[in-house]
């Protein structure tokens, strides 16, 4: 416990978290500080490329065990399953209508890659190794949750095709961040250790600093979301935003143990399950379920669950995984 507290304290006082806090406070105080859209997009391309590449290069170095296939499969199942649990919790805990509940649920099956990146950076800081292919698992978990949520809605409406068409399907599967993550993973895998050495001083050394500025922007965006959409956060909704990542992380813990992942891998599986999407899924929901309220799912995902995972969740998941795996 005391170890968890010290870890949490250490985490809370890291440049990464403090940058997020700075952004959050600046926008809550209505400062005009803002990061241009193009710069934020540029940083996210950098982070996805770097994290994918490093994952691939690590697979090239340490070889591939049979667990990759099972881990991908587990990711797909988790992503499809978690929305159903989330939907149930939402119906029980909040007064949300079915449409909004399904839209929110989709976010919690999918993942937040920045939460994942922050977790890998905490693991690295503590010297805990993890499977390089977890970035591939992250990519695999992006989309299934969307299908799952649309199925939840169509089931009750008796209209099986509702919202989903082939164009949307292609957009989801080929969405930029999946393609970049998987592509960079493949490049890292193919070029291996040597490729990594060539571009190390671009994708490894400055990584944490870029992450700070990116989280500064995330804080700004989360703060603006809370200012505009904070009204939707009834007590029940807020409680869901904190409970669901905990539930997700425990299910991720079970999956990670079952798969026999390393302690670091278990942590990442917990983080993926606990985190909620705020890029791919919101865009898909605007197309497929335009009547659902975007304030609800964006505020929950970005304004509640993301900061929760970043500050309390990650050290907690590390603590639990270490205790359970004895790592």
């Amino acid at each position, binding site marked *: 416990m005391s170890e968890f507290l010290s870890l949490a304290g250490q985490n809370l006082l890291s440049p990464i978290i403090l940058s997020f806090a700075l952004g959050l406070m600046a926008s809550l105080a209505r400062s005009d500080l803002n990061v241009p859209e193009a710069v934020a997009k540029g940083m996210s391309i950098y982070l996805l490329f770097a994290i994918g590449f490093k994952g691939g290069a690590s697979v090239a170095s340490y070889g591939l065990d049979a667990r990759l296939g099972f881990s991908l499969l587990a990711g797909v199942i988790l992503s499809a399953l978690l929305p159903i649990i989330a939907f149930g919790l939402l119906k029980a805990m909040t007064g949300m209508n079915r449409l909004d509940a399904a839209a929110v649920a989709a976010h919690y099956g999918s993942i937040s890659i920045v939460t994942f990146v922050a977790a890998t950076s905490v693991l690295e800081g503590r010297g805990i190794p993890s499977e390089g292919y977890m970035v591939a698992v992250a990519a695999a978990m992006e989309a299934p949750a969307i299908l799952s949520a649309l199925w939840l809605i169509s089931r009750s409406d008796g209209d099986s095709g509702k919202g989903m068409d082939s164009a949307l399907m292609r957009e989801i599967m080929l969405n930029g961040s999946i393609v970049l993550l998987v592509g960079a993973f493949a490049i890292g895998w193919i070029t291996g250790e040597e490729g990594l050495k060539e571009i190390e001083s671009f994708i490894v050394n400055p990584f944490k600093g870029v992450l700070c500025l990116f989280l500064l922007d995330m804080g700004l965006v989360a703060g603006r979301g809370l200012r505009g*959409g904070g009204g939707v956060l009834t007590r029940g909704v807020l409680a869901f935003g904190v409970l669901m990542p905990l539930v997700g992380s425990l299910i991720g813990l079970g999956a990670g143990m079952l798969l026999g992942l390393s302690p670091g891998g278990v942590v990442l599986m917990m983080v993926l399950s606990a985190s909620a999407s705020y890029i791919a899924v*919101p865009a898909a929901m605007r197309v497929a379920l335009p009547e659902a309220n975007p304030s609800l799912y964006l505020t929950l995902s970005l304004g509640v669950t993301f900061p929760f995972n970043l500050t309390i969740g990650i050290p907690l998941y590390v603590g639990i995984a270490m205790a359970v795996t004895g790592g």
Partner: protein
Amino acid sequence: MQTYKAKRVEITIENVMESRLTDALRGAGVTGYSVLPVLGGSGRSGAWSRSGQVSRAQGMVQVVCIIKPERLDALLDAAFEVVERHIGVVSVVDCDVLRAERF
């Protein structure tokens, strides 16, 4: 300078719907359009701003389409089908254009 009567249609629509709208416009026989960025705005669904996003879920664009008057109805029908369930605004203005053969 010789000018010709035409209609200028401006459709403000979510980013994510842009390609669906332009596909529909082409389907309705529209031969040209331009897409302009929108930085932010406000409406019944609240206020938004391009810098307040990490996702492209919320942004909007403005699709501008100049057409011959006789094509207006087909265009509006096509556009309406796309925007129907979505937020967004459709407006039409009378205009004069040079080089009518282009529309």
